[in-house]
């Protein structure tokens, strides 16, 4: 089998699992994204790269327009491509009293990977904020994911990781400090999104001597898919480490979610993966 770098240099679809855990879908008011809501073009780009699946939240997540309508935009896309697009329920600290209702509404729509929250243009909050507790309890009950743009209060993040052990917390943008915390908190992951510096991820794998704490993310489809894959494909790390970050680590998270067994989203990928499921 060819290496990831060889596939990328040839512009050929990857044949190993490729799951992007940090995507967005919807219109953007402050920038021009050509064909931003063209579902067919997004799926076609995923096909060209060999990207199996993108976990997507809303555009302008939690700070623009009607939150339910923004979530419906993503969930409608996921309904049209249920094995390729897995939606996050996007929530906001603007409207804390309605977050639980919105989360339950989204969960009732079908497979949902968890909750995404951002920081821009909304009141400050931490994982210990009162309104967060009911959200995290629901995520724990369903063994789902909580993705945040950036965890500003690390002490409260650690507290939440310990209290909600069945929730997997993902830091949305590359941060070596999160990887350090993940060594002592098995339910914490770092997303590689925007690891801009040359071979930052390869250096991080070498520093940690492991690759199981990182998940590829790109902000696709606000930006192109190469914004995630490119930092990994050329990196100075073993091929197994690249494959972990590009897909295997995310597959392991999917496997622990109850709906993954019945939804069919993992069909086909498990055989390629060769994960020891015991």
């Amino acid at each position, binding site marked *: 089998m060819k290496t990831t770098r060889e596939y990328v240099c040839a512009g050929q679809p990857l044949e190993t699992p490729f799951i992007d855990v940090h995507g967005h879908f919807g219109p953007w008011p402050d920038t021009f994204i050509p064909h931003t809501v063209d579902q067919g073009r997004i799926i076609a*780009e995923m096909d060209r790269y060999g990207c199996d699946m993108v976990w997507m939240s809303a555009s302008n997540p939690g700070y623009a327009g009607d939150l339910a309508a923004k979530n419906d935009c993503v969930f409608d896309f996921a309904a049209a491509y249920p094995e390729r697009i897995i939606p996050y329920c996007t929530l906001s600290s603007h409207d804390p009293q309605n977050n639980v209702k919105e989360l339950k509404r989204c969960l009732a729509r079908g497979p949902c990977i968890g909750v995404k929250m951002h920081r821009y243009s909304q009141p400050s909050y931490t994982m210990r904020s009162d309104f967060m507790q009911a959200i995290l309890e629901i995520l724990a009950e369903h063994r789902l994911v909580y993705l945040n743009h950036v965890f500003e209060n690390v002490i409260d993040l650690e507290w939440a990781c310990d209290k909600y052990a069945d929730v997997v917390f993902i830091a949305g943008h590359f941060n070596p400090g999160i990887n350090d915390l993940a060594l002592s908190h098995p339910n914490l992951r770092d997303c590689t999104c925007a690891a801009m510096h040359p071979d930052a991820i390869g250096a991080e794998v070498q520093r940690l001597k492991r690759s199981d704490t990182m998940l590829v993310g790109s902000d696709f489809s606000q*930006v192109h898919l190469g914004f995630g894959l490119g930092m990994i494909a*050329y990196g100075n790390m073993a091929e197994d480490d690249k494959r972990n970050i590009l897909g295997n680590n995310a597959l392991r998270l999917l496997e622990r979610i109850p709906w993954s067994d019945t939804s069919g989203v993992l069909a086909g990928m498990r055989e390629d993966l060769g994960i020891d499921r015991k």
Partner: protein
Amino acid sequence: MVTFFDCEMGLGPTGLGGAAAPTAEALLRVMGQYDIGSALVYDRAAHEAGVFDRFDFILEACGTSHRLLPTIPVLPPATREQMPPADLVAFCLDHGIKAVRACPTAHNFICDRHSMGRLCTQLQARRMPLIHSSIGLREHPYKHQPPWHDLRDLALAFPDMPVIVLHTGMMQGRNLFTLLEECPNVMADLSCASFQYVEEVVAHFGSARLVMASHFPAEDPGLYTTWLNYAKVDADVRANIAGDNLRRLLAAVV
């Protein structure tokens, strides 16, 4: 497989931490890692430190390999920190320098026809490209916004001078597309990272308007090489963007 001609690579030590290629050999190793065949190269330490009148390091380093093509920074002639414009351009041509770099944020000046007119008159006469990079030394490209009015002013005032805009800002498509439409002498790199950006520029303005710049050592070249490898464009379009556009531009310098 695509081999790239990179419009911006920094050579030499950096005082900002992170990756660097202190020597030509080190830079060539980086280029090999990313399938970059040739590159327009600038002196990274001089860029950071503000050294504008000594070009020995970059010329000597680039003299060791035909794959490394030197570029030098330019400033408003009024300050007289550099040779007079005609002498500076003659120096460039004598030393194989076929493009110059204006970095108005890092070097704190306004880059318009008023400040740069005397120099641009000389550059235009030689069809020598002006590479424009307005990003700050520690600025993140996501929210970067080039000085669009100044760029438009300069490009319109010197319509036969190629202007290559690097670091367009990742989310500045509305301003960039307007500039591309109004100024045929403007080209841009791939830092406008929007979904479908490459395909859309090619569809509306043609494949001659884009170049590949890796921005090493500030950024990972894989961001851009990967994107171009997978873009939904024909092979000749991909080749143009990967390097042929830049090759043609430099070959046209007289």
